[in-house]
């Protein structure tokens, strides 16, 4: 899922400083699961920003709604009515959600309430880690299902760098050495021979280094 983290109340308040009627829009998918932009987080942020504005003597007329998915037009329809009444919209969705709303409401300023971080998984309660970079050319089969492109700090494709200590990456922050994980995993599935193959330099053109990506699946077009 897409993992995001909330902006501070002060930053949020400054973003909407010029506006009086504002709509806070939550998203019921990824950012709800990562506790950043769901109905509850929208509610808490609403209270905080409303109180901050009241203390400043500039009361805010704030409405809130949480739609199923901000990245799909079908669901954005649900917020058309409250959006029409607002001077500005604050999206608690990921970067895709913010842009989808901005496209759908060309006459309204749309501000982001979150910092979109990465594609990851829930490691334990309230801890998320990055697992996928979205490089556009998945190599997980070669590495036993552990991605060195994402999880090795140096993005090395042909073995570890030699800087790891006690299975920990030298970059620190408690992150494990991805290559140690790959070795362990390949050993446990009896595919250590995969490490004999030399992986050629990666073609980064299908990744974001190329240009904004677009996928068209003709078989599903209507």
């Amino acid at each position: 899922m897409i993992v995001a983290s909330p902006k501070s109340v002060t930053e949020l308040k400054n973003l909407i400083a010029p506006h009086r009627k504002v709509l806070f829009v939550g998203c019921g998918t990824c950012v709800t699961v990562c506790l950043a932009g769901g109905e509850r987080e929208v509610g808490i942020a609403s209270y905080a920003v409303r109180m901050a504005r009241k203390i400043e003597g500039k009361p805010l007329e704030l409405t809130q709604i949480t739609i199923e998915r901000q990245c799909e037009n079908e669901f954005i329809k649900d917020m058309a009515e409250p959006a029409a009444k607002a001077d500005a919209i604050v999206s608690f969705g990921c970067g895709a959600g913010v842009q989808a709303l901005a496209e759908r409401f060309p006459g309204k300023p749309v501000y982001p309430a979150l910092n979109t971080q990465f594609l990851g998984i829930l490691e334990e309660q309230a801890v998320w880690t990055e697992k996928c970079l979205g490089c556009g050319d998945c190599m997980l089969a070669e590495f036993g299902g552990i991605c060195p492109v994402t999880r090795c700090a140096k993005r090395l494709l042909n073995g570890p760098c030699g800087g790891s200590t006690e299975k920990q990456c030298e970059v620190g922050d408690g992150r494990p050495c991805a290559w140690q994980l790959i070795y362990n995993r390949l050993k446990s599935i009896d595919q250590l021979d995969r490490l004999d193959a030399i992986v050629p330099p990666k073609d980064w053109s299908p990744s974001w280094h190329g240009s904004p990506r677009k996928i068209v699946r003709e078989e599903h077009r209507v």
Partner: protein
Amino acid sequence: MIQLEREEIAAPVSTGRWEPRIIAFCCNYCAYAAADLAGSKRMQYPANVRIVHTPCTGKIEMEHILDAFEKGIDGVLVAGCLEGGCHFLEGNLRARQHIGRMREILDEIGVGAERLKMVNLSAAMAPAFVERVEEIVETVRALGPSPLSPSRRKESAGKS
């Protein structure tokens, strides 16, 4: 959501001077029983506090606390079980983390973290309950009305 009406959080006694209004969210298994015991023992504590009976401090949503502050309450006391003694094992520990985050938000928006406090008690600790209530009443009295309190707003309206 607990609906707190203005009348319910109205000033406790009309002495002519400002009195802090405080809500105490009390866990059923400890602080609420401690408050009850304090009452049975005829112990006196400030009438500035209104008690809200909760099943566990871990069940108090952040929005409940923010709602109280938005409605103009001057202080909030969250009273849960002693650490390690939660009826639901770790509800009070979760509450402590939530309260920590709430205090950061209250500081950031200008209400002030000191207006929100969490304490841990057992059901037998009636005197401690009374002390904790007296402490928060004194803390909030020294801070003055909340910037969102109707009395503060009346004051500033009078000044301008």
